């Protein structure tokens, strides 16, 4: 078996046992990343020099008998909206086409300190706005399972890189499904943690009350290993929670007897037959493993999408006001005065989808419409939160599809923003309520494209999600990949 097909924990064990050096692995995976970049566009930057340097340092430490963490020497990649010191961080936008951050994000530093080896920065929808990875200034990303299909967005490059064996794991960010959706479309495992579990310091802000960083990997065990590294308190993010975090690796027991799973029927409205069939089969499998599965109703789901697009666009319009061509990034070449410089810089630097969301958010926050849209959406947010609290008083986990269909064709939905937005029906609620959600490969549908099962749990219950996904992956092969 070629080493790129191993999981992160498997290659880490080989490096630790000195079967192979971290440098050899890094060299091989850099060439895999270059190949993945050429074939699918999953990478914006491949960081060969950094990778070799970091890998050599790991080899030296191992030679000196140091016990580095469980993922030491493992090559990985980071979504291009997460800051890497002196390494291009573009957010998939012309606006940041030349931006080299002067600092590392909290998660970047944590992974480097754990001996993980950075091999590149992954492509994404511009400023993480999109469900198909078709809005990047650096070109769209293709689904490794079928190049005619989208990989999902916005962390499309992060999911495609793992699926194509172009990285052992990656980091993504999830504002309304941006980790779970591409994980589902590409047949890999991705978890969005509880809001506040992972520091957002160094994550370029899209919608600050919804954004959360999380891992995309080949299976739940790898996700748990990455979570153990990145989930920690950080005083540089005032929303990062100063609470005890469990050892996620220890939560991986192969036993879900008595686990109570709620299946909200609203999440199946509009889902394709192939998706329903795969999800139902996976629920049956979980039942056979001892879980108790019951149908429930979450009627407030019907309002989640509208609330999500108002809240996220409003926050985006505010966050993206900082791009004015003064301190970093793109500045228009020709302008008459300061005001003209702002207008031209923003007009030329942002793509169509980003402009549309800034416009929508500015409208929703403007005088006369604030109560009807923004305040109303915040109230609906309270109702959604309450609805989840009620479900989790009786159940451990909520199960649903991640997306109503398998990966759609590239170009299929680009002309109709509402059609593109409504697909996010199953994923946005977790961000609105701040709860964790995981996408677990659970079958193949139309044209043999992967399907993801979404599991959500109450806040801080990532361990329950990882345990359930882990147990499921002990008896299924859907996550085994290309």
């Amino acid at each position, binding site marked *: 078996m070629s080493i790129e097909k191993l999981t992160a924990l498997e290659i880490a064990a080989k490096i630790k046992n000195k079967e192979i050096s971290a440098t050899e692995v890094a060299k091989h995976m850099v060439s895999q990343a270059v190949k993945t970049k050429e074939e699918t566009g999953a990478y914006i930057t491949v960081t060969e020099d950094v990778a070799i340097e970091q890998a050599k340092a790991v080899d030296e430490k191992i030679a000196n008998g140091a016990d580095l963490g469980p993922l030491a020497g493992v090559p990985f990649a980071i979504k291009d909206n997460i800051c890497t010191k002196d390494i291009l961080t573009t957010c998939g936008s012309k606006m940041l086409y*030349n*931006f*080299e951050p*002067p*600092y590392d994000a909290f998660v970047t530093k944590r992974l480097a300190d754990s001996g993980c080896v950075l091999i590149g920065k992954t492509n994404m929808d511009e400023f993480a706005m999109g469900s198909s990875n078709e809005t990047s200034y650096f070109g769209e990303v293709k689904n490794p399972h079928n190049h005619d299909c989208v990989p999902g967005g916005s962390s499309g490059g992060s999911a495609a890189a793992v699926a194509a064996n172009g990285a052992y794991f990656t980091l993504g960010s999830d504002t309304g499904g941006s980790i779970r959706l591409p994980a589902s479309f590409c047949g890999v495992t991705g978890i969005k943690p*509880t*809001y506040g579990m992972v520091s957002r310091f160094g994550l370029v802000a899209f919608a600050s*009350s919804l954004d959360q960083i999380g891992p995309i990997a080949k299976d739940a065990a790898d996700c748990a290993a990455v979570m153990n590294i990145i989930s920690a308190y950080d005083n540089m993010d005032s*929303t990062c*929670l100063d609470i005890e975090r469990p050892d996620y690796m220890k939560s991986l027991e192969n036993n879900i007897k008595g686990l109570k799973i709620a299946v909200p029927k609203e999440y199946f409205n509009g889902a394709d037959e192939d998706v329903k069939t795969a999800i139902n089969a996976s629920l049956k499998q979980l039942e056979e493993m001892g879980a108790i599965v019951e149908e429930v109703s979450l009627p407030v789901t*019907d*309002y989640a*999408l*509208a609330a999500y*697009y*108002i809240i996220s666009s409003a926050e985006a*319009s505010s966050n993206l006001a900082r791009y004015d*061509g*003064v*301190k*970093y990034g*793109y*500045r228009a070449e020709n*302008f008459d*005065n300061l005001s003209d*410089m*702002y*207008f*031209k810089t*923003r*007009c030329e630097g942002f793509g169509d989808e980003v*402009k*549309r969301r*800034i*416009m*929508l958010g*500015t*409208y*929703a926050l*403007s005088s006369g419409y604030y109560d*009807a*849209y923004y*305040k*109303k*959406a*915040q*109230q*609906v*947010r*309270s*109702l959604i*939160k309450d609805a989840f609290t009620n479900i989790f008083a009786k159940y451990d986990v909520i199960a649903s599809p991640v997306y109503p269909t398998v990966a759609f064709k590239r170009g299929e939905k680009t002309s109709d*923003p*509402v059609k593109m*937005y*409504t697909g996010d029906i199953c994923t946005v609620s977790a*961000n*609105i309520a701040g*709860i964790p959600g995981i996408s677990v490969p659970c079958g193949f549908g139309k044209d043999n494209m992967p399907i993801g099962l979404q599991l959500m749990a109450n*806040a801080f219950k990532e361990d329950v999600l990882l345990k359930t996904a882990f147990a499921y992956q002990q008896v299924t092969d859907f996550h085994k990949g290309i």
Partner: protein
Amino acid sequence: MKITEKEVEYVAKLARLYVSDEEKEKLTKDMSAIIEFADTLSKIDTDGVAPAAHAIPVQNVFREDVVKDSYKRDDILKNAPEKEAGCFSVPKVVE
């Protein structure tokens, strides 16, 4: 609710974006469709419901007020589109 081209012009100005006639037409159509979709919110009764700004309530997080090293000026200026004498340089603001 339908959005007018005039509203699009006004919002674009607030957002510091120039829009061409062609873009204006498209944005008017797209934003109307999205706002009509968002209007489903008006159907749900939220009387007396408190708005939630954050899902996980966190309040007044303070750090100790101690002097620490910050970033070096040259590092911060590294990405400036234009700089002069250790400052970000912009076109003249006051004539």
